[in-house]
């Protein structure tokens, strides 16, 4: 996947960080909107009957992601035991040279639709 400059700038602007060439550290969330990842998530929590609420999120990077650069992105999902239902997501963006550049980890709570959080 590539860090699209327009997408990075749009995210930077809405966060209020000014208009320059920085890629927000939270940029990898943009990749979570991909159809492939939505389909994978839907296997854990049916979007017709559930909602997902972020409980925690971490991002780390060895060096800032660069606009226009391409990364191999991997994502692992697993259901956590216990109640309420939770999904853990662990991902990494690796350069084409095989160096891990950024990692993310998230815990999502699964809410039944229409039920108070």
């Amino acid at each position, binding site marked *: 996947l590539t860090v699209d400059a327009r997408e990075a700038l*749009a995210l930077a602007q809405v966060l209020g960080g000014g208009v320059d060439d920085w890629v927000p550290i939270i940029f990898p969330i943009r990749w979570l909107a991909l159809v492939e990842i939505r389909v994978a998530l839907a296997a854990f929590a049916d979007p017709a009957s559930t909602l997902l*609420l972020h409980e925690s999120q971490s*991002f*780390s990077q060895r060096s*800032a992601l660069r606009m226009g650069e391409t990364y191999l992105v991997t994502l692992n999902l697993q259901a956590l035991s216990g109640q309420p239902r939770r999904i853990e997501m662990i991902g990494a963006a690796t350069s084409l040279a095989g160096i891990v550049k950024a990692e993310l980890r998230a815990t999502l709570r699964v809410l039944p639709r229409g039920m108070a*959080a």
Partner: protein
Amino acid sequence: MTPPAPQTKLPIWTVGPIDAAWVRRYTEASGDDNPLHRDPETASAAGFSGIVVPGLLLLGLCEPAIRAWQPAARVNRLVGRFLQPLAAPVQVSVTGRIVLVTSGTQEVVVRLFVGTPEQPMACIAEASLSWPEA
């Protein structure tokens, strides 16, 4: 550059009010189509008084707050827990202080809080910063 000393506080970074239009710009920029952040009826049915401000938007505000305070610093790690969902519209503040300075590496850890006077810990975050070698 010498990192700031432990316990140094960030200047308070106030943002907002974050309203439905702002949340929509964020959800479009991030690709987040969660109806809790877009549809008042869905949010209401889930027990919220309005659309829910995305926790990742709150967490993401920490980076520009840090950049405004320490323009030369690089954020290497940003971790957040979302404790109190906020409903839009809402004005939030980012506050924080340095909790750890690692000697030798010029790396510091900053504890951050994003919230309102009524819900000051909507998001508790921690950021690791470093400064490029001169």
